[in-house]
Protein backbone atom coordinates (compact mmCIF):
# COMPACT_ATOMS: atom_id res chain seq x y z
CA UNK A 1 0.00 0.00 0.00
CA UNK A 2 1.49 3.38 -0.93
CA UNK A 3 2.41 5.68 1.92
CA UNK A 4 0.30 8.74 2.45
CA UNK A 5 1.26 12.27 1.38
CA UNK A 6 -0.43 13.56 4.49
CA UNK A 7 -2.21 11.85 7.31
CA UNK A 8 -4.39 13.27 10.05
CA UNK A 9 -5.15 10.74 12.77
CA UNK A 10 -7.76 11.45 15.42
CA UNK A 11 -7.38 15.16 14.79
CA UNK A 12 -9.64 17.78 16.29
CA UNK A 13 -9.80 21.22 14.69
CA UNK A 14 -9.77 24.21 17.07
CA UNK A 15 -11.80 27.35 16.47
CA UNK A 16 -9.93 30.31 15.01
CA UNK A 17 -10.73 32.75 17.80
CA UNK A 18 -10.71 30.34 20.74
CA UNK A 19 -8.41 27.28 20.58
CA UNK A 20 -10.30 25.72 23.49
CA UNK A 21 -13.37 25.25 21.34
CA UNK A 22 -13.35 22.29 18.97
CA UNK A 23 -15.05 22.85 15.62
CA UNK A 24 -14.47 19.42 14.08
CA UNK A 25 -13.39 16.29 15.91
CA UNK A 26 -12.34 12.78 15.01
CA UNK A 27 -10.75 13.57 11.65
CA UNK A 28 -9.01 10.51 10.22
CA UNK A 29 -7.85 11.61 6.81
CA UNK A 30 -5.19 10.06 4.66
CA UNK A 31 -4.28 11.40 1.23
CA UNK A 32 -2.32 9.27 -1.21
CA UNK A 33 -0.90 9.73 -4.70
CA UNK A 34 -3.37 10.28 -7.52
CA UNK A 35 -6.25 10.94 -5.18
CA UNK A 36 -8.70 13.78 -5.64
CA UNK A 37 -10.48 14.48 -2.39
CA UNK A 38 -13.71 16.44 -2.14
CA UNK A 39 -14.61 17.56 1.38
CA UNK A 40 -18.15 18.80 1.62
CA UNK A 41 -19.97 20.61 4.36
CA UNK A 42 -22.24 23.56 5.02
CA UNK A 43 -20.68 27.04 5.32
CA UNK A 44 -18.98 27.61 8.66
CA UNK A 45 -18.60 23.91 9.48
CA UNK A 46 -14.79 24.07 9.69
CA UNK A 47 -13.70 23.06 6.17
CA UNK A 48 -11.29 25.98 5.81
CA UNK A 49 -9.81 25.31 9.24
CA UNK A 50 -9.32 21.66 8.29
CA UNK A 51 -7.27 22.70 5.25
CA UNK A 52 -5.26 25.13 7.34
CA UNK A 53 -4.47 22.33 9.80
CA UNK A 54 -3.54 20.05 6.90
CA UNK A 55 -1.28 22.77 5.47
CA UNK A 56 0.44 23.19 8.83
CA UNK A 57 -0.78 26.74 9.45
CA UNK A 58 -2.82 25.79 12.50
CA UNK A 59 -1.84 23.18 15.05
CA UNK A 60 -4.44 20.48 15.62
CA UNK A 61 -6.15 20.60 18.99
CA UNK A 62 -5.77 16.86 19.41
CA UNK A 63 -4.41 13.99 17.33
CA UNK A 64 -1.43 13.77 15.02
CA UNK A 65 -0.55 15.18 11.63
CA UNK A 66 2.18 13.61 9.57
CA UNK A 67 3.52 14.63 6.19
CA UNK A 68 5.73 12.73 3.78
CA UNK A 69 7.20 13.39 0.37
CA UNK A 70 6.99 11.45 -2.86
CA UNK A 71 10.17 9.66 -3.78
CA UNK A 72 11.83 10.04 -7.15
CA UNK A 73 9.76 7.17 -8.47
CA UNK A 74 6.62 9.02 -7.57
CA UNK A 75 5.61 6.95 -4.57
CA UNK A 76 5.64 8.40 -1.10
CA UNK A 77 8.20 7.61 1.54
CA UNK A 78 6.87 8.03 5.03
CA UNK A 79 10.24 8.55 6.65
CA UNK A 80 11.21 11.40 4.35
CA UNK A 81 9.88 14.70 5.65
CA UNK A 82 9.18 17.49 3.18
CA UNK A 83 9.09 21.20 3.74
CA UNK A 84 5.64 22.47 4.61
CA UNK A 85 5.52 24.57 1.48
CA UNK A 86 5.34 21.42 -0.64
CA UNK A 87 1.71 21.54 0.38
CA UNK A 88 0.06 24.26 -1.69
CA UNK A 89 -2.98 26.01 -0.27
CA UNK A 90 -5.33 28.27 -2.21
CA UNK A 91 -7.56 30.17 0.17
CA UNK A 92 -11.25 30.82 -0.38
CA UNK A 93 -12.83 34.15 -1.33
CA UNK A 94 -10.26 35.39 -3.82
CA UNK A 95 -7.23 33.38 -2.72
CA UNK A 96 -5.57 36.20 -0.74
CA UNK A 97 -3.02 37.39 -3.31
CA UNK A 98 -0.54 40.06 -2.19
CA UNK A 99 -2.10 43.31 -3.30
CA UNK A 100 1.10 45.35 -3.09
CA UNK A 101 2.72 43.16 -5.78
CA UNK A 102 1.77 42.68 -9.42
CA UNK A 103 0.30 39.39 -10.60
CA UNK A 104 3.67 38.32 -12.02
CA UNK A 105 5.46 39.26 -8.80
CA UNK A 106 2.91 37.31 -6.78
CA UNK A 107 3.85 34.18 -8.70
CA UNK A 108 7.58 34.93 -8.67
CA UNK A 109 7.77 35.68 -4.92
CA UNK A 110 7.68 32.12 -3.52
CA UNK A 111 10.09 30.90 -6.21
CA UNK A 112 12.59 33.66 -5.54
CA UNK A 113 12.27 33.54 -1.77
CA UNK A 114 13.18 29.86 -1.68
CA UNK A 115 15.80 30.03 -4.43
CA UNK A 116 17.35 33.28 -3.25
CA UNK A 117 17.05 34.96 -6.64
CA UNK A 118 15.70 38.30 -7.78
CA UNK A 119 12.05 38.57 -8.78
CA UNK A 120 13.00 39.19 -12.42
CA UNK A 121 15.21 36.08 -12.57
CA UNK A 122 12.34 33.63 -12.98
CA UNK A 123 10.52 35.39 -15.80
CA UNK A 124 10.20 32.36 -18.07
CA UNK A 125 8.77 30.15 -15.33
CA UNK A 126 6.35 32.85 -14.26
CA UNK A 127 5.24 33.43 -17.86
CA UNK A 128 4.60 29.72 -18.28
CA UNK A 129 2.49 29.59 -15.13
CA UNK A 130 0.58 32.69 -16.17
CA UNK A 131 -0.04 31.17 -19.61
CA UNK A 132 -1.41 27.99 -18.08
CA UNK A 133 -3.69 29.91 -15.77
CA UNK A 134 -4.60 32.38 -18.58
CA UNK A 135 -3.38 35.32 -16.56
CA UNK A 136 -0.72 36.56 -18.99
CA UNK A 137 -2.74 39.66 -20.04
CA UNK A 138 -2.93 40.67 -16.38
CA UNK A 139 0.73 40.01 -15.50
CA UNK A 140 1.59 43.63 -14.69
CA UNK A 141 -1.67 44.47 -12.93
CA UNK A 142 -2.28 44.50 -9.20
CA UNK A 143 -4.60 41.74 -8.00
CA UNK A 144 -6.80 44.28 -6.20
CA UNK A 145 -8.19 45.52 -9.52
CA UNK A 146 -8.98 42.01 -10.81
CA UNK A 147 -12.26 40.24 -10.22
CA UNK A 148 -12.58 37.54 -7.62
CA UNK A 149 -12.21 34.65 -10.08
CA UNK A 150 -8.97 36.04 -11.52
CA UNK A 151 -7.59 36.79 -8.07
CA UNK A 152 -8.20 33.21 -7.12
CA UNK A 153 -6.34 32.11 -10.23
CA UNK A 154 -3.39 34.29 -9.16
CA UNK A 155 -3.38 32.38 -5.88
CA UNK A 156 -3.54 29.10 -7.81
CA UNK A 157 -0.57 30.05 -10.01
CA UNK A 158 1.33 31.18 -6.92
CA UNK A 159 0.68 27.88 -5.16
CA UNK A 160 1.66 25.86 -8.23
CA UNK A 161 4.93 27.78 -8.56
CA UNK A 162 6.42 25.68 -5.77
CA UNK A 163 5.31 22.45 -7.49
CA UNK A 164 3.41 21.15 -4.46
CA UNK A 165 2.90 17.45 -3.92
CA UNK A 166 -0.50 18.12 -2.47
CA UNK A 167 -2.69 20.99 -3.61
CA UNK A 168 -5.41 22.12 -1.19
CA UNK A 169 -8.17 24.33 -2.61
CA UNK A 170 -10.60 25.98 -0.25
CA UNK A 171 -14.01 26.26 -1.93
CA UNK A 172 -12.50 27.23 -5.30
CA UNK A 173 -15.88 27.51 -7.05
CA UNK A 174 -17.53 29.64 -4.37
CA UNK A 175 -19.16 32.75 -5.82
CA UNK A 176 -17.81 32.23 -9.35
CA UNK A 177 -19.64 32.75 -12.63
CA UNK A 178 -20.47 29.74 -14.85
CA UNK A 179 -17.59 30.38 -17.23
CA UNK A 180 -15.14 30.63 -14.35
CA UNK A 181 -16.47 27.41 -12.79
CA UNK A 182 -15.99 25.65 -16.10
CA UNK A 183 -12.44 26.98 -16.35
CA UNK A 184 -11.57 25.71 -12.87
CA UNK A 185 -13.04 22.26 -13.48
CA UNK A 186 -11.21 21.96 -16.81
CA UNK A 187 -7.93 23.15 -15.32
CA UNK A 188 -8.16 20.80 -12.34
CA UNK A 189 -8.91 17.93 -14.73
CA UNK A 190 -5.72 18.83 -16.61
CA UNK A 191 -3.81 18.89 -13.33
CA UNK A 192 -5.26 15.52 -12.39
CA UNK A 193 -4.26 13.94 -15.72
CA UNK A 194 -1.46 16.15 -17.06
CA UNK A 195 -0.57 15.82 -20.72
CA UNK A 196 2.12 18.46 -20.72
CA UNK A 197 5.18 17.25 -18.76
CA UNK A 198 6.08 20.77 -17.66
CA UNK A 199 2.70 21.38 -16.04
CA UNK A 200 3.40 21.40 -12.27
CA UNK A 201 0.76 18.81 -11.52
CA UNK A 202 0.50 17.87 -7.85
CA UNK A 203 0.42 14.22 -6.84
CA UNK A 204 -2.93 14.74 -5.14
CA UNK A 205 -5.59 17.41 -4.85
CA UNK A 206 -8.13 18.15 -2.14
CA UNK A 207 -10.97 20.65 -2.42
CA UNK A 208 -13.65 21.79 -0.03
CA UNK A 209 -17.12 22.65 -1.21
CA UNK A 210 -20.71 23.21 -0.17
CA UNK A 211 -21.97 21.88 -3.50
CA UNK A 212 -21.10 18.34 -4.48
CA UNK A 213 -22.54 18.27 -8.00
CA UNK A 214 -19.64 19.86 -9.93
CA UNK A 215 -17.15 17.48 -8.33
CA UNK A 216 -18.76 14.13 -9.06
CA UNK A 217 -16.73 13.65 -12.23
CA UNK A 218 -13.41 14.83 -10.83
CA UNK A 219 -13.43 13.57 -7.24
CA UNK A 220 -12.14 10.12 -6.39
CA UNK A 221 -12.76 10.28 -2.63
CA UNK A 222 -15.47 12.19 -0.80
CA UNK A 223 -15.95 13.20 2.82
CA UNK A 224 -18.49 15.19 4.73
CA UNK A 225 -18.13 17.46 7.74
CA UNK A 226 -21.42 17.62 9.53
CA UNK A 227 -22.25 18.72 13.06
CA UNK A 228 -18.61 18.79 14.02
CA UNK A 229 -17.86 15.26 12.86
CA UNK A 230 -15.78 13.92 9.97
CA UNK A 231 -17.54 11.28 7.87
CA UNK A 232 -16.04 9.48 4.88
CA UNK A 233 -18.53 9.21 1.99
CA UNK A 234 -16.54 6.95 -0.32
CA UNK A 235 -16.40 7.04 -4.12
CA UNK A 236 -18.50 9.09 -6.59
CA UNK A 237 -21.08 6.32 -7.18
CA UNK A 238 -21.52 5.96 -3.43
CA UNK A 239 -22.05 9.70 -3.09
CA UNK A 240 -24.50 9.78 -5.99
CA UNK A 241 -26.55 7.01 -4.42
CA UNK A 242 -26.23 8.26 -0.85
CA UNK A 243 -29.47 8.82 1.03
CA UNK A 244 -27.80 10.98 3.66
CA UNK A 245 -29.96 14.15 3.91
CA UNK A 246 -26.99 16.54 3.93
CA UNK A 247 -25.48 14.86 0.89
CA UNK A 248 -28.81 14.88 -0.96
CA UNK A 249 -29.18 18.55 -0.16
CA UNK A 250 -25.74 19.35 -1.55
CA UNK A 251 -26.52 17.39 -4.70
CA UNK A 252 -29.92 18.85 -5.49
CA UNK A 253 -29.97 22.25 -3.88
CA UNK A 254 -31.44 24.46 -6.63
CA UNK A 255 -29.50 27.49 -5.38
CA UNK A 256 -26.23 25.71 -5.98
CA UNK A 257 -27.25 24.05 -9.20
CA UNK A 258 -28.42 27.17 -11.00
CA UNK A 259 -25.09 27.25 -12.86
Amino acid at each position, binding site marked *: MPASLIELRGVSIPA*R*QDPDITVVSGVDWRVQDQEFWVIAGPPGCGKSLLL*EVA*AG*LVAPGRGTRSVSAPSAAGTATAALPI*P*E*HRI*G*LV*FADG*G*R*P*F*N*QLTVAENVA*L*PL*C*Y*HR*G*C*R*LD*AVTSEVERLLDWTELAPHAQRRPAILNRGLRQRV*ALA*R*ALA*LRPSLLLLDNPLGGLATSQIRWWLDFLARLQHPRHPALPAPAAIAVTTDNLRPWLTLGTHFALIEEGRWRSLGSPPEVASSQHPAVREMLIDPVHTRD
Partner: protein
Amino acid sequence: MPAAPPLNREKGLPWQAVLQSPLPRSYTNFVGQWMLRWIDASHKMLAFALISLGVLTTKFKTASAVVHPLIFEQIARAGLGMLPMISFLAAALGFVVIGQTVALLTQVGAQDLIGTVMVTVVVRELGPLIAAMVVLLRVGTATVIELGMTRALGEVEALEALGIDPIHYLVVPRVLGMAIGVLTLSSYLILGAVFSGYLFAFLQDVPLTPGEYFRQLALALTWQDFALLALKTMAFGGILAVVTCFHGLAQPLLLAEVSTATTRALVTSLIACVALDALFIVVYLLM
Protein backbone atom coordinates in the same frame (compact mmCIF):
# COMPACT_ATOMS: atom_id res chain seq x y z
CA MET B 1 -19.91 44.64 66.35
CA PRO B 2 -16.66 44.62 64.37
CA ALA B 3 -13.40 45.25 66.19
CA ALA B 4 -11.81 48.66 65.78
CA PRO B 5 -8.97 48.72 63.26
CA PRO B 6 -5.45 48.79 64.76
CA LEU B 7 -3.75 52.14 64.75
CA ASN B 8 -0.64 52.89 62.78
CA ARG B 9 1.77 53.59 65.63
CA GLU B 10 4.01 55.91 63.62
CA LYS B 11 1.41 58.23 62.20
CA GLY B 12 -1.48 57.41 64.42
CA LEU B 13 -3.73 56.45 61.50
CA PRO B 14 -5.97 53.40 61.22
CA TRP B 15 -4.09 51.79 58.29
CA GLN B 16 -6.63 49.06 57.75
CA ALA B 17 -9.23 51.72 57.41
CA VAL B 18 -7.05 53.38 54.82
CA LEU B 19 -6.78 50.14 52.90
CA GLN B 20 -10.52 49.72 53.14
CA SER B 21 -10.97 53.31 52.10
CA PRO B 22 -13.97 54.31 50.07
CA LEU B 23 -12.15 54.16 46.75
CA PRO B 24 -14.80 53.24 44.24
CA ARG B 25 -14.60 49.58 43.39
CA SER B 26 -14.98 50.30 39.70
CA TYR B 27 -12.06 52.74 39.82
CA THR B 28 -9.69 50.24 41.41
CA ASN B 29 -10.84 47.63 38.96
CA PHE B 30 -10.20 50.03 36.11
CA VAL B 31 -6.67 50.83 37.28
CA GLY B 32 -5.90 47.19 38.01
CA GLN B 33 -7.18 46.04 34.66
CA TRP B 34 -5.34 48.83 32.88
CA MET B 35 -2.08 47.87 34.58
CA LEU B 36 -2.54 44.18 33.86
CA ARG B 37 -3.27 44.95 30.22
CA TRP B 38 -0.22 47.22 30.07
CA ILE B 39 2.02 44.51 31.56
CA ASP B 40 0.59 41.89 29.22
CA ALA B 41 1.03 44.13 26.15
CA SER B 42 4.58 45.04 27.19
CA HIS B 43 5.41 41.38 27.68
CA LYS B 44 4.05 40.47 24.24
CA MET B 45 5.80 43.41 22.60
CA LEU B 46 9.10 42.45 24.19
CA ALA B 47 8.67 38.89 22.97
CA PHE B 48 7.87 40.21 19.48
CA ALA B 49 10.98 42.42 19.57
CA LEU B 50 13.17 39.47 20.60
CA ILE B 51 11.68 37.25 17.89
CA SER B 52 12.26 39.98 15.30
CA LEU B 53 15.84 40.43 16.49
CA GLY B 54 16.37 36.68 16.32
CA VAL B 55 15.04 36.51 12.77
CA LEU B 56 17.09 39.55 11.78
CA THR B 57 20.33 37.96 12.96
CA THR B 58 19.70 34.38 11.87
CA LYS B 59 18.05 35.05 8.50
CA PHE B 60 19.86 38.17 7.35
CA LYS B 61 21.42 36.33 4.41
CA THR B 62 18.37 34.17 3.66
CA ALA B 63 16.58 35.15 0.44
CA SER B 64 18.72 38.27 0.35
CA ALA B 65 17.82 38.95 -3.29
CA VAL B 66 14.19 39.33 -2.23
CA VAL B 67 14.49 40.85 1.24
CA HIS B 68 17.42 43.25 0.79
CA PRO B 69 15.66 45.33 -1.88
CA LEU B 70 12.80 45.64 0.60
CA ILE B 71 15.27 46.95 3.20
CA PHE B 72 16.57 49.57 0.74
CA GLU B 73 12.98 50.47 -0.09
CA GLN B 74 12.21 51.04 3.58
CA ILE B 75 15.40 53.07 4.08
CA ALA B 76 14.41 55.26 1.14
CA ARG B 77 10.91 55.58 2.55
CA ALA B 78 11.92 56.41 6.14
CA GLY B 79 15.05 58.33 5.19
CA LEU B 80 15.40 59.84 1.72
CA GLY B 81 11.69 60.30 1.24
CA MET B 82 11.50 62.46 4.36
CA LEU B 83 14.31 64.83 3.41
CA PRO B 84 12.06 67.69 2.23
CA MET B 85 10.05 67.55 5.45
CA ILE B 86 13.20 67.33 7.56
CA SER B 87 14.78 70.26 5.70
CA PHE B 88 11.72 72.35 6.47
CA LEU B 89 11.80 71.32 10.14
CA ALA B 90 15.54 71.99 10.34
CA ALA B 91 14.98 75.52 9.06
CA ALA B 92 12.11 76.03 11.52
CA LEU B 93 14.14 74.62 14.41
CA GLY B 94 17.09 76.82 13.47
CA PHE B 95 14.86 79.86 13.42
CA VAL B 96 12.79 79.13 16.53
CA VAL B 97 15.44 77.74 18.83
CA ILE B 98 18.93 78.46 17.62
CA GLY B 99 18.48 81.84 16.01
CA GLN B 100 16.76 83.23 19.09
CA THR B 101 19.06 81.48 21.58
CA VAL B 102 22.19 82.74 19.89
CA ALA B 103 20.83 86.27 19.77
CA LEU B 104 19.75 86.13 23.43
CA LEU B 105 23.02 84.69 24.71
CA THR B 106 24.98 87.27 22.76
CA GLN B 107 22.88 90.10 24.20
CA VAL B 108 23.63 89.02 27.79
CA GLY B 109 27.27 88.38 27.01
CA ALA B 110 27.06 84.61 27.45
CA GLN B 111 28.44 83.75 24.02
CA ASP B 112 30.66 81.09 25.58
CA LEU B 113 27.59 78.98 26.34
CA ILE B 114 26.36 78.85 22.77
CA GLY B 115 28.12 75.57 21.97
CA THR B 116 26.92 73.87 25.13
CA VAL B 117 23.32 74.99 24.60
CA MET B 118 23.36 73.89 20.97
CA VAL B 119 24.73 70.45 21.78
CA THR B 120 22.37 69.91 24.70
CA VAL B 121 19.23 71.14 23.01
CA VAL B 122 19.69 70.18 19.39
CA VAL B 123 22.17 67.31 19.18
CA ARG B 124 21.13 65.42 22.28
CA GLU B 125 17.42 66.12 22.54
CA LEU B 126 15.44 67.83 19.83
CA GLY B 127 17.20 66.40 16.79
CA PRO B 128 16.63 62.71 17.54
CA LEU B 129 13.20 63.24 19.05
CA ILE B 130 11.84 65.34 16.19
CA ALA B 131 13.25 62.97 13.58
CA ALA B 132 11.66 60.03 15.40
CA MET B 133 8.30 61.79 15.60
CA VAL B 134 8.39 62.65 11.91
CA VAL B 135 9.14 59.04 11.01
CA LEU B 136 6.41 57.88 13.37
CA LEU B 137 3.82 60.15 11.81
CA ARG B 138 4.78 59.63 8.18
CA VAL B 139 6.00 56.02 8.13
CA GLY B 140 4.83 54.48 11.41
CA THR B 141 1.16 55.17 10.77
CA ALA B 142 1.43 53.84 7.23
CA THR B 143 3.17 50.74 8.58
CA VAL B 144 0.37 49.91 11.03
CA ILE B 145 -2.26 50.41 8.35
CA GLU B 146 -0.37 48.37 5.74
CA LEU B 147 0.39 45.50 8.10
CA GLY B 148 -3.04 45.71 9.70
CA MET B 149 -4.63 45.33 6.27
CA THR B 150 -2.22 42.52 5.44
CA ARG B 151 -3.24 40.78 8.63
CA ALA B 152 -6.95 41.48 8.28
CA LEU B 153 -7.01 40.26 4.66
CA GLY B 154 -5.28 37.02 5.62
CA GLU B 155 -2.12 37.67 3.61
CA VAL B 156 0.05 36.71 6.58
CA GLU B 157 -1.35 33.18 6.46
CA ALA B 158 -0.85 33.22 2.69
CA LEU B 159 2.84 34.00 3.22
CA GLU B 160 3.12 31.19 5.77
CA ALA B 161 1.41 28.80 3.36
CA LEU B 162 4.19 29.55 0.86
CA GLY B 163 6.89 28.88 3.45
CA ILE B 164 7.75 32.59 3.73
CA ASP B 165 8.45 33.84 7.24
CA PRO B 166 6.23 36.94 7.73
CA ILE B 167 8.63 38.39 10.30
CA HIS B 168 11.51 38.02 7.85
CA TYR B 169 9.58 39.40 4.88
CA LEU B 170 7.47 42.11 6.53
CA VAL B 171 9.11 43.14 9.82
CA VAL B 172 12.89 42.90 9.31
CA PRO B 173 12.99 45.41 6.39
CA ARG B 174 10.92 47.87 8.40
CA VAL B 175 13.05 47.54 11.54
CA LEU B 176 16.25 48.19 9.59
CA GLY B 177 14.64 50.86 7.42
CA MET B 178 13.28 52.86 10.35
CA ALA B 179 16.43 52.46 12.48
CA ILE B 180 18.68 53.71 9.66
CA GLY B 181 16.09 56.27 8.60
CA VAL B 182 15.86 57.92 12.04
CA LEU B 183 19.67 57.91 12.34
CA THR B 184 20.24 59.65 9.02
CA LEU B 185 17.33 62.04 9.39
CA SER B 186 18.53 63.09 12.85
CA SER B 187 21.95 63.83 11.40
CA TYR B 188 20.48 65.91 8.58
CA LEU B 189 18.14 67.68 10.98
CA ILE B 190 20.95 68.59 13.36
CA LEU B 191 23.23 69.82 10.58
CA GLY B 192 20.41 71.77 8.95
CA ALA B 193 19.32 73.33 12.24
CA VAL B 194 22.87 74.36 13.16
CA PHE B 195 23.47 76.00 9.77
CA SER B 196 20.07 77.64 9.50
CA GLY B 197 20.35 78.79 13.12
CA TYR B 198 23.54 80.63 12.36
CA LEU B 199 21.93 82.07 9.23
CA PHE B 200 19.08 83.53 11.27
CA ALA B 201 21.52 84.83 13.90
CA PHE B 202 23.56 86.44 11.09
CA LEU B 203 20.41 88.07 9.70
CA GLN B 204 19.78 89.54 13.16
CA ASP B 205 23.25 91.14 13.11
CA VAL B 206 24.48 89.08 16.03
CA PRO B 207 28.21 89.82 16.42
CA LEU B 208 29.36 86.23 16.16
CA THR B 209 31.69 84.99 13.47
CA PRO B 210 31.11 81.62 11.82
CA GLY B 211 34.53 80.50 13.02
CA GLU B 212 33.69 81.27 16.64
CA TYR B 213 30.24 79.67 16.34
CA PHE B 214 31.57 76.39 14.96
CA ARG B 215 34.59 76.44 17.29
CA GLN B 216 32.25 76.50 20.27
CA LEU B 217 30.15 73.69 18.83
CA ALA B 218 33.25 71.60 18.25
CA LEU B 219 34.45 72.24 21.80
CA ALA B 220 31.11 71.26 23.31
CA LEU B 221 30.89 67.99 21.36
CA THR B 222 32.59 64.85 22.62
CA TRP B 223 32.96 61.46 20.97
CA GLN B 224 30.36 60.12 23.40
CA ASP B 225 27.83 62.50 21.88
CA PHE B 226 28.29 60.89 18.46
CA ALA B 227 28.15 57.37 19.86
CA LEU B 228 25.08 58.07 21.98
CA LEU B 229 23.39 59.92 19.12
CA ALA B 230 23.81 56.90 16.86
CA LEU B 231 22.65 54.53 19.59
CA LYS B 232 19.69 56.67 20.58
CA THR B 233 18.40 57.33 17.07
CA MET B 234 18.71 53.70 16.01
CA ALA B 235 16.95 52.67 19.21
CA PHE B 236 14.17 55.15 18.44
CA GLY B 237 13.82 53.72 14.95
CA GLY B 238 13.84 50.17 16.26
CA ILE B 239 11.18 50.98 18.83
CA LEU B 240 8.96 52.66 16.25
CA ALA B 241 9.28 49.70 13.91
CA VAL B 242 8.67 47.07 16.58
CA VAL B 243 5.68 48.85 18.11
CA THR B 244 4.01 49.66 14.79
CA CYS B 245 4.68 46.18 13.35
CA PHE B 246 3.45 44.58 16.57
CA HIS B 247 0.17 46.47 16.51
CA GLY B 248 -0.36 45.81 12.83
CA LEU B 249 0.80 42.26 12.59
CA ALA B 250 1.17 40.36 15.83
CA GLN B 251 -2.47 39.91 16.72
CA PRO B 252 -5.56 38.91 14.76
CA LEU B 253 -7.25 42.00 13.36
CA LEU B 254 -10.48 42.78 11.62
CA LEU B 255 -10.53 45.55 9.03
CA ALA B 256 -12.63 47.68 11.37
CA GLU B 257 -9.95 47.39 14.07
CA VAL B 258 -7.10 48.77 11.95
CA SER B 259 -7.84 52.39 12.89
CA THR B 260 -7.87 51.55 16.61
CA ALA B 261 -4.61 49.63 16.25
CA THR B 262 -3.06 52.63 14.49
CA THR B 263 -4.02 55.01 17.30
CA ARG B 264 -2.78 52.59 19.93
CA ALA B 265 0.52 52.13 18.09
CA LEU B 266 1.09 55.88 17.84
CA VAL B 267 0.47 56.46 21.54
CA THR B 268 2.60 53.48 22.57
CA SER B 269 5.45 54.57 20.28
CA LEU B 270 5.35 58.09 21.63
CA ILE B 271 5.45 56.93 25.25
CA ALA B 272 8.21 54.41 24.52
CA CYS B 273 10.36 57.02 22.78
CA VAL B 274 9.91 59.55 25.58
CA ALA B 275 10.74 56.86 28.17
CA LEU B 276 13.89 55.93 26.25
CA ASP B 277 14.78 59.60 25.95
CA ALA B 278 14.50 59.95 29.73
CA LEU B 279 16.85 57.00 30.10
CA PHE B 280 19.39 58.69 27.84
CA ILE B 281 19.10 61.93 29.86
CA VAL B 282 20.30 59.94 32.86
CA VAL B 283 23.24 58.67 30.81
CA TYR B 284 24.08 62.22 29.68
CA LEU B 285 23.92 63.47 33.26
CA LEU B 286 26.33 60.74 34.34
CA MET B 287 28.82 61.66 31.59
